[in-house]
Structures are given as C-alpha cells and as structure tokens.
C-alpha cells in the first residue's frame, strides 16, 4: 500500500503561488494610471477582439493580466454583480470597493480550495467627481487586495515597470502625458542604457479611459486614430 507523501501547508501554498506567478509573468503588462481628467488603462495587445481592459459599470473599469479564459470569466461575473446590484438598489450604489471585495473573496477561495489557483491579476478602478476620490484596487491571484494611490502596474515585469512609472508620474498630468508615459514604460527594455527599448505603435496597443467629465458611462475605448493623435503630442512634451 502506498502512503501519500506529507506536504507541509507552507510548501503547498508556496507551490501554488509560484505556479500562479509563473502563469501571470508570461503575459504582457497592463498599466492603470490616474490623470487630471480621470483614469487611463493601457496595455500592449494586438487583438482587437480579445480585450484585457473593459467596462464594468458607469464609473468602474477593469483590467487584467494572465490567462484569458480565467479573467474573462471574472470580468463577466463582475458585470453581472454590478448590474444586479444596480438593478436591486440604484446605480449609485455600485462601488469599486464592493466589486473588489467580491473578487478578492472569489480569488481567495479558488486559491485555497481548488486544485489550481487562478493565473490572473486584476485591477478595478472607479473614477469619482474629483481626483482625490478616484480609487484603484489591485487584486492578486491569492485574493489579496491593495488600494494603490495613483497607478498600478501588473504583469510579468510589474516591479521594474512600476518603478519607472513612479519616477515620472505626478497626479496633475494630462491624458496625453500619461499615455505617453505608459507607452514609454511598456516599451522599456531591461537594459539600463535603453538599448533594449522598443517604440510601441498605436496599433499594437489597447487603451481606454474612465473620463470624469462624461455624463453617465465614463468608460471609453481609445481607438487607434485617437491614440495616434494623442501620443505624438506627449512625445514632444
């Protein structure tokens, strides 16, 4: 008769975390960053149909890295959560905090109880009437939640790229300036001297904003022509 090997809980959790982290690191990074007029989402994505950024509710947006089928599933669940909540109560009663909570519980439960943890990382952002009220939440594969001030970078090179954003970011940047910053950071290579840097063309980007000044639904995708118009202006500045 064979005895199952004993695996300590520490080792089990570490293995699961390593597994999830490896899956997430394979994906291209996503940057969610606040600016004067709202919150911008930028990632490298050549697909026009398989989105990594999307609308959840009137003032709430969503971005993800990792396995497409897993985060798409969470996105749909988020839209259903928000619409159900808004339908049962009122549209203003749907908040990013509540959604982040529901996601955290779900991802945490999958991490500890199911055979495979989710190989995804999410960001949930909500734009308020003033910049001080904007919220950006980052959700880890294990259900960890953090409210990040100003910006979030997720994906493989999150730490390195996050440091680059931190150097240059201030809260009074304009949309063109944050897009320029995000695109430069996404294209930054590992070499210090910039020899490995790439210039990302608008066609290879997926970008959207939560625009504070739009009346009801703040979320708006930025088309390739719109991005082309916005980007060179920032390069000069």
């Amino acid at each position, binding site marked *: 008769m064979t005895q199952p090997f004993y695996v300590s809980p520490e080792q089990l959790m570490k293995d699961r975390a390593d597994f999830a982290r490896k899956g997430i690191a394979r994906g291209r990074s996503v940057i969610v960053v606040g600016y004067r007029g709202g919150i911008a989402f930028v990632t490298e994505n050549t697909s026009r*149909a398989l*989105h990594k950024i*999307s*609308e*959840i509710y009137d003032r709430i947006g969503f971005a993800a890295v990792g396995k497409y089928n897993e985060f798409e*599933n*969470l996105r*749909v*669940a988020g*839209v*259903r*959560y928000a*619409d*159900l*909540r*808004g*339908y*049962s109560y009122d549209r203003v009663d749907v908040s990013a905090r*509540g959604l982040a*909570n*529901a*996601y955290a*519980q*779900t991802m*945490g*439960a999958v991490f500890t109880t199911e055979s495979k943890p989710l190989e995804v990382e999410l960001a949930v952002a909500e734009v308020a009437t003033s910049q001080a009220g904007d919220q950006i939440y980052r959700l880890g594969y294990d259900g960890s939640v953090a409210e990040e001030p100003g910006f979030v970078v997720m994906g493989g090179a999150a730490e390195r790229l996050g440091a680059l954003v931190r150097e240059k970011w201030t809260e009074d940047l304009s949309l063109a300036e944050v897009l320029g910053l995000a695109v430069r950071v996404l294209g930054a290579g590992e070499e210090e001297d910039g020899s490995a840097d790439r210039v990302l063309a608008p066609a290879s980007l997926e970008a959207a904003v939560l625009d504070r000044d739009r009346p009801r639904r703040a979320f708006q995708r930025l088309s390739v022509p719109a991005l082309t118009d916005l980007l060179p202006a920032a390069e000069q500045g």
Partner: protein
Amino acid sequence: MTAEFGDRLPAAFSRPGSSSFVDFLADHAPNLLPGREPAPIGSVEAPHATTIVALTYDGGIVMAGDRRATMGSTIAHRRMEKVFSADDYSAVGIAGTAGVAVELVRLFQLELEHFEKIEGTLLSLEGKANRLATMVRAGLPMALQGLAAVPLFGGYDERRSEGRIFSYDVAGGRYEEADFHAIGSGSVHARGSMKKLWAQGLGRDEAVRIAVHALIDAADEDSATGGPDVARGIYPIVAVVDAGGYRRVGDSDLAAVVRAITSGQEES
C-alpha cells in the same frame, strides 16, 4: 442574494453562455423579475399611462409621449415621463399600467447595456426589438389580471441607415410599422392626425412638429391624454433618434412648436 455579496461570487455569476441579464436573473434571482410571482385573483386600480406616438423621417425617427397618467377619472400624475432612451440608438415609449411599464423599461435598458458590456458590441435593432417582445410576453400573466403594459419601440438601424418603428401586443407579438404609429388611449386620434400630416421625405423639425401636433389632437379628443400645459410649463417628452444617436428635444424648442401649432388652430 444580498447575503452573498460579502462572500465568494456564486457559481451563477461565472456560468458561461448567456449575455442576457434577464436570463441571468431568471437563473440566479428569479424573485427580482417582474411578474414571476403568481398574483392573487382580483383587481387593483393603478395609474395608467397613455398616448405615445412615433414616426419615421428621412434618416431617423421621432417618438413623443404626453405627460399624463390617470387613475380612473382622476389625473394621477402630470409630469410622468413615458419616452426613454433604450440605449444610444433606440427609444422606447410605454402605455398601460405605469408601474409595470416603467419596470419593463428599466429592465430592457439594463438588458441592452448588459449585452453591450459582455459582448463588446451593440445588438442589432432587430435583435433589440425581438428581445423586447420576449420581455413583453413574460408579462402576459400580469396582463391577464389587468396589469398590462405595451411598449412602442423605435430606433436607428445602422445596417440599413434608416429609422424603424416596432409595435407590440400584450401577448408579445411584434410588428414592424411603416411610416408612423401610436399606442395608448389617444392613439386612434393621434394616428388619424399623423395620417393626414405624414409624408415621404420629412425633415427632422417637420417630424417633431407632426408628433407634437398628433399629441395635441389626441389630447383634444381623449380625456386621458394630457396636452401641452403652457401655464405650468409641462411639454410632451419628444425624442429624436438618428445616426447621431438619441436626443431629447428641449422644452424651449417645444414651446415654440406648440405656439406655432396652437396659433395656427386659432386662425382656422
């Protein structure tokens, strides 16, 4: 349902396959769907919403509704809104039991927005019209008890580059209307009015004028339809849907239209 919000999202939230909010509700929280609980036999008096008119013009549609809701012979509301944007490219107007009708519109608006968010694209105009038919049909048990609501739906069809109008019956029958249509208690008079005024190749402003004129004619003959109330500043809700999307016509513009129509009537 509320108890689950602090916890892991239930399995129904991540079940793949459906982009319909109504289907999701039926699956996860059927108690929230209107008309799903069997109502006891009996009758109840509830506010009634009346006349809605819609007509096509060159490049879009105009939909308009009066502001009155009645309960028996009393006026229940003077400022009720019965014409809504279903989404950016369509409008829906309602007649019948007000509470049922407003709930139907709220669910329909959400259904379209939900589909748009999940699929990343808008439903076709025909698709929206069919969806609404299914939802009207689901209200049949309540209609049998006297709580009937019937919508009038219209919008801009981007594939055909033209405005289209759809009417419904309580059983969920869906009919595409050519040129113009009206529903509600004053609809006979409004339809008669539009029959005389409507012509091929109308412009937007002319179409708005005809819609308001039809409502004034209906209010003239039907006590449940409210005409423009100049003294209180209550004007019909008039919406225009064209390639640029859904827009409400402002009260100041309507005041001018009403003035032109009524002064014309005095002369004749």
